[in-house]
């Protein structure tokens, strides 16, 4: 009976850039260090967590992004049900990891808003507010970065050529979305 309402309502299009929110997407924060942790995750989601810094790995259902040597953000590739926030995979991993003290699994589905940017001006947009060097980042698909965009913490996932997902904390998302649109209108 509770209605789902995202912080971002409209999608926007500019020349060379389209901006849209993708929701609802399941997001889990995975923490752990041991070999057991990695193998248990691997077995249950059928995917190996990336070990190399600032990279990601994907299966048909999920994408996992390296955040630190013992932290990953795992997201569903597809949109999930709005009427229900019971994520089977989340419960499964929680039971296999958290309950067994192999690590920690935390639901962060609404901690982050996923904003997708697509078009040839994606990196022009980012470099108007982000001090990071994207020269190498943009050459390789699947790269991940944690940085600031217009002073707001973001995780950037380079999905494919000229297509990135930004993960921004929900409370900042309206501000950032507004800034992105302002910046996009100036490109």
């Amino acid at each position: 009976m509770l209605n789902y309402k995202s912080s971002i309502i409209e999608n926007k299009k500019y020349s060379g850039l389209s901006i849209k929110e993708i929701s609802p997407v399941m997001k889990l924060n995975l923490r752990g260090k041991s070999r057991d942790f990695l193998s248990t995750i691997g077995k249950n989601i059928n995917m190996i967590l990336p070990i190399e810094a600032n990279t990601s790995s994907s299966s048909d259902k999920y994408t996992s992004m390296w955040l630190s040597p013992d932290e990953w953000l795992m997201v569903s590739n597809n949109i999930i049900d709005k009427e229900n926030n019971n994520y089977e995979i989340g419960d499964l991993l929680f039971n296999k990891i958290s309950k067994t003290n192999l690590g920690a699994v935390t639901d962060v589905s609404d901690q982050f808003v996923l904003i997708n940017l697509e078009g040839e001006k994606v990196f022009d947009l980012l470099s108007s507010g982000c001090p990071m060097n994207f020269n190498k980042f943009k050459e390789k698909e699947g790269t991940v970065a944690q940085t600031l965009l217009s002073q707001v913490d973001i995780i950037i996932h380079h999905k494919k050529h000229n297509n990135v997902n930004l993960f921004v904390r929900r409370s900042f998302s309206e501000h950032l979305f507004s800034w992105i649109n302002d910046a996009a209108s100036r490109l």
Partner: protein
Amino acid sequence: MSNNLRVKSSNYIDETTIVSFKFNGKNYHGYKGDTLASALLANNVHLVGRSFKYHRPRGIMTSGSEEPNAIVQVGNNAAITEPNVRATEVEIYDGLEATSQNCWPSVNFDIGGINNLLSPFLPAGFYYKTFMWPASFWKKYEYFIRHSAGLGKSPTKPDTDIYDHKYIHCDVLVIGAGISGIMAAKIAAKNNLKTLLLEEKTQIGGSTIYQNSEKFKIDNKNSSEWLINEINEIKKLDNLQIKTRTSVAAYHGYNYLLARENLTDHLSPSEKKGKIRQRLLKIRAKKVIVATGSLERPLIFNNNDRPGIMLSSAVKKYADHYGVICGKNNIFFTNNDSAYESAISLHKKGIKVQAIIDIRENSKSSLVEEATNLGIKIYWSHTVVDTVGYKKINKISLKKLSNDGQSTTGSKINISCDCLGVSGGWTPAVHLFTQSGGKLKFRDKDQVFIPNKYPSKQISIGSCNGDFSLNDIIKNCLNSLKKFLEIENIEYENLDIINPIETEKRNIWLLPSDKVIGKTKPFVDYQNDATAKDIKLALREGFRSIEHVKRYTTTGMGTDQGKLGNMHALGIVADTTGVKMSELGTTTFRPPYTPLTFGTIVGRNVGEYFDIFRKTPMNNWHLNNKAEFENVGQWKRAWYYPVNNETIYEAVQRESLAARESAGILDASTLGKIDIQGSDASEFLNRVYTNAWSKLGIGKCRYGLMLNEDGMVYDDGVTTRLSENHYIMTTTTGGAANVLGKLEDYLQTEWPELDVYLTSVTDHFATASICGPNSKKILNKLIPELDLSDENFPHMSFKEARIGKIKCRVMRISFTGEHSYEINVQANYGESLWEHCMEAGKEFNITPYGTETMHLLRAEKGFIIVGQDTDGTMTPIDLQMDWIVSKKKYDFIGKRSLYRSDTIREDRKQLVGLLTENPKEILEEGAQIVSDLSKKPFEMLGHVTSSYFSPNLKKSIALAVVRGGKKMMGKKLFIPMEGRTINVTIVDPIFLDKENKRLNA
């Protein structure tokens, strides 16, 4: 009378496009490609401004960003007018309006010009010395001094232009697109390096591009022709980005540079509409190649500042590049060969060059030979001793120099002229190099400072590195690039270069006159009216350090930062004091190289983008229900919800009563929430909080106080045990990020042995807190299947539940002292949760309340707010919260500090309650508390930290920190306010329901 000063169509001026503009209210025409300076000169306007102190008439002196005199106010719109713009850099456009600065009523008749006559009474330090006496008069003096100080007028309305920022990362940054910069950029880009080439001027090519002398050849082509080919080549390179009208403002450490890209200043008002005016580029370069060139030096002689006295290179550029002659009857005054180039170029255009006055005894270069052959009269070993012409030069006087160059001999020769081109040699533009931390060395041969030690991966090439002849520039540039870029085979290796060779040099920093120095005006800093005389005065008065001389005389402190005269100031100091130039050093070169607009610095961080805001999931509801908001950190929090034009006081009184009498609802989503998991989670909490956690039952909540290492209260909040090794901690709104950082720091550096993981879930959950006697009934309507009996769900416990299909967490915890529940759902269901609570609470008149009411309600209960009632100097004992400090635990953060002699002192400031004698009197937060009114000055015992009128208690209540307050229960104290004193009594800080009956009701 305009067009007769145009000599020939230049490649860089489009004579088919006429541009009209206004200067000092008068209409003029110029051509597309003109700067304001070249267009004014073409209209025979030399007088463009007045000097700062003496209001002497001044004209255009240079053709670039070093211009000290021709600074103008552009535009007359109060929002976008800009002062101190160099006329030599303003590109004209239709509708441009510019005015002279520093003159009133007009540049032609300036009342301040009287200062020139008074100048003997206005030496350096005049203001410092004169307006000291009597001290009490300063306020009167200041009014007049402020009136005459400052250059130009600031805009008075908000800037309507748009500015932007951009980050750029490149392998190689080349600053300056003269011949060496262009070659460097081509070499770098062709060797697979991502290269950025920046040029402050409109076109690239530097001074070579309009060099039409047959004496400068590269590979048998005229140097300009060769360079134009190169320019066409580099424009095709993918790896190279070229930005013109872009001036590097600052060169910081580790190759981080700031540059201003000018995008629309050259466009007409209609063309620039809606476009970004300027962009600040924030550049990180792996390697930097500085090719900023050099600035021609003036010569320092008596009355060297009149309109019509210009740098000889500027005279040449106006003629060769803009096709404008600066005078019809020219004289050059020089100590090197450069002026000969200018003279020859003018002569070849059919413009009269009367004479060249050269302080050297002779020179044998091919340029001198050519000038002689053309019949130009050369006065060797002569100096100009005076000039005549108030608003434009019309005559000069010269005399022969003595052998030592310190005096003049012979008889005076007078020559009339309308333009005097001067050249005192060249100063490498080392500003950026020194900004980056580079160290200079002095080269005696030609008296220049050149780069010596590089602090980062950078090199200087071309004339900014002290290479002045074409051959030196190209050959040295290639050698250094080869090493610097680690390239084996370099292009251009076998270029055949021809250029005239300068053999003779003579430098005299201050040229002698036939008058004593006290009677002359040899200007060193044109903009600030500092003369050689002033520098000598400063030295006589005991100033030795060049930095002190600079400040006393204001030499080099104008908007041009003394780009022209600083070297002479140094030279005069060195000569006068007998110190070597190399030992004297230079004054500090500070960014920005040329003035930056505030707009560029700020970029888009204005208006709504000035600061970040954070919003809760329920924010729209608050907005729609007319809440007033307050900023809590970056959060926008609902402050109170006025109904029917209530004041904040009325609204808070109503909201507080409702929360105590029936039901209230608060958006508590902003509280920090940290998910804690791991087999050592309980141990971890034991270490971070002052109280014990091991025995907290699963499904139970506990309040915790977190200290800093110094024992002072840092944060507080309720933590809930969700399962054996799983907790959810709440923190204060403002402290959330710092607490997480601190805890993570402890885990990683102090307690790596603990198996604990922290994950922020602040934004994942939306939290609605419903409180009041009817809160249980409301929750029952919302989640009927949840057993709310005290047995199943007592105070300080937690239940998992579902609203429909949506999972939620419900905690029975209270910050108000009322029976209350906090419902946490995933954030995207938060607004809907709130609406459902409002619907379910309708019959109980559920009242939304904001942070102000929350503060009042908790103050009634004596609950502290960290940061309001504490300030980083309060221990839990000071707060009368001894009960929360475990005596049994081995350790927790801050434990040791609690037992230091100072923290156990009994006369520390302690938290107490205050009641006013008059129950309707509300104290001001921050008011000071005293016990003895007769003792002056008052001895302040403490201050009020929280103060409200409590509608529930029907009296005013306050919390305060008072020295030794714990032992002062019942004591009467005073609060002196302006014009009256308020009597107060110290009481227990818990004003309401000390027995917690309401909580458990």
